[in-house]
């Protein structure tokens, strides 16, 4: 078999996955950081237990109309802050967002919910005993790029990192 054929076949997935990681890593470091409130949501998902699935509270209704299902939408978050939970100021079609929109998050409507791909946070296996549901006062830290794509970078409970909350919630050994 020709050497370049085998080399291309085995390099192809490695290169593509490497490029994907680089792009995600760039998204994680660049962009505006915002904090959003989240609340519990029953996902009926066979894999739940390995991650927390939640509903993001943007402060305004975004997808109430039935016609909005699967339509691309944008939410304007105004001026970003890494500490204060954001409340959206505008929800609607991306083309219609106001000029002074500032940081915006792009997503689509699904069953009257705005989905931006940030509704899941993976947790270590041993957290599952403490975190059988999303705790009260939970927030997520999100990085949003200039094109509106968002990525979860951290999960907070009462302003503290998840690991600390789990440590405090665990019964004494």
């Amino acid at each position, binding site marked *: 078999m020709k050497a370049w054929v085998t080399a291309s076949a085995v390099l192809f*997935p490695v290169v593509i996955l490497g490029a994907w990681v680089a792009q995600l890593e760039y998204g994680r470091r660049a962009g505006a950081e915002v904090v959003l409130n989240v609340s519990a949501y029953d996902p009926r998902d066979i894999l739940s237990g390995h*991650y927390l699935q939640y509903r993001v509270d943007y402060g305004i209704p975004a997808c109430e109309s039935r016609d909005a299902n699967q339509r691309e939408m944008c939410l304007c978050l105004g001026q970003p802050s890494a500490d204060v939970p954001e409340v959206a100021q505008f929800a609607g079609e991306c083309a219609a967002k106001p000029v002074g929109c500032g940081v915006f998050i792009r997503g*689509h409507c*699904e069953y009257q919910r705005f989905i931006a791909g940030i509704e*899941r946070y*993976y947790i*270590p296996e041993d957290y599952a005993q403490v975190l059988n549901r999303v705790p009260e006062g939970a927030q997520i830290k999100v990085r949003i790029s200039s094109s509106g794509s968002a990525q*979860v970078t951290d999960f907070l409970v009462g302003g503290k990192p998840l690991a600390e909350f789990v440590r405090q919630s665990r019964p004494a050994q």
Partner: protein
Amino acid sequence: MLRWAKQLETWHKAGLLSTEQVEQIHRFEASQPRRAWGVWGLLGIGATAVCTGVVSVIAANWENLGDAFKLSAYFAMQGLLGWVLYQRRDRSGPLREVLLTIFALLVSGGIGLIGQIYNLRSDGWQGLLLWLVLTLPVTALAQGKLLPHLWTVGTGTTACLWAASNNSSINEGDRWLLTASLPLAFAALGASNPSQIKLPVRLREAITTWGFFGVCAGGALLANLAFHEGWSSREPAPLLGTAAIAAFGSLAIVASWANRNLGRGVKLGLTALFGFVTLGCTLPFVVSHFPPSEVLGALIFLVIWSATAVTALLLERKRWFDLATIVIAVRFIVIYFEVFGSLAATGLGLIASGGVIIAVGLLWHRAHARFRVWLEAQR
């Protein structure tokens, strides 16, 4: 004792073979390389266990390991395996096939790990689709059956997950019909002339097998349901899906007629099979106010499987023929439960159909030897 050895003993006792001939055959068989199914089975189970282990380690999401370490470890493993495969590129055998399979399955572990580290949300099909694209080149390199079959089944699974998810601007009816058109596309590739459309041998085999199975089983079931339920009133009309089925169905017919390796009878059989599946899966959607009918649903199912049986017979695929006749017999019985409301009518119908099935079976048992002679003469 092996099956062929038992057969030899029977022929020897009947005086058809001499002791010397029997010994010669034994010596010849002993010198032939064995198809070690047991070894292949063990290697397959081993490869699956290794990959399940890797996925489990990733799924555990160890908090004491940093993201950079986890990603570096994954890329190191994938790269190392790739390098070993590159070094062994001129060798063949079970080890190479196992390494290729582990390499491909490890890619799925990598996709899962990246999704986990960056908290990506997915309905499942997106990750599988990426895996299919990334592993197609290594699947094409496979000389064994495992990876090509795994890849082909993966395409069907991905299509079904996509059709079942709500995360698409394409309506549900179109999504399912587009999914149903996939086996027709595969069958079109399978029916094409290998010298005209060149594909890796094992990949072609897997695509052909699953394509035909999907066309026969899935196509017959979908056509049956569409006729039975009368889905013409679905809103919006699934025009995209029906167009895809019509296009791939026609392509499959054209491909079989363009294949010079197939006899005229086989071409006619394939035309009937693809034609009935295409009509069955499109007519109820494009004809407005198509009347729902249980009888028509059962009839199109039986017609599709009859075309399958005839084609299998002409292609000398005994297992396919046997499967088709069993499916026809079972469907024949189910009709009575569907069509007749009362227990007495169903019972009488079952007695009648059981009698017909037994009669057909006996007739076939007596006539199939003569039929084979006739078939040979036709060639």
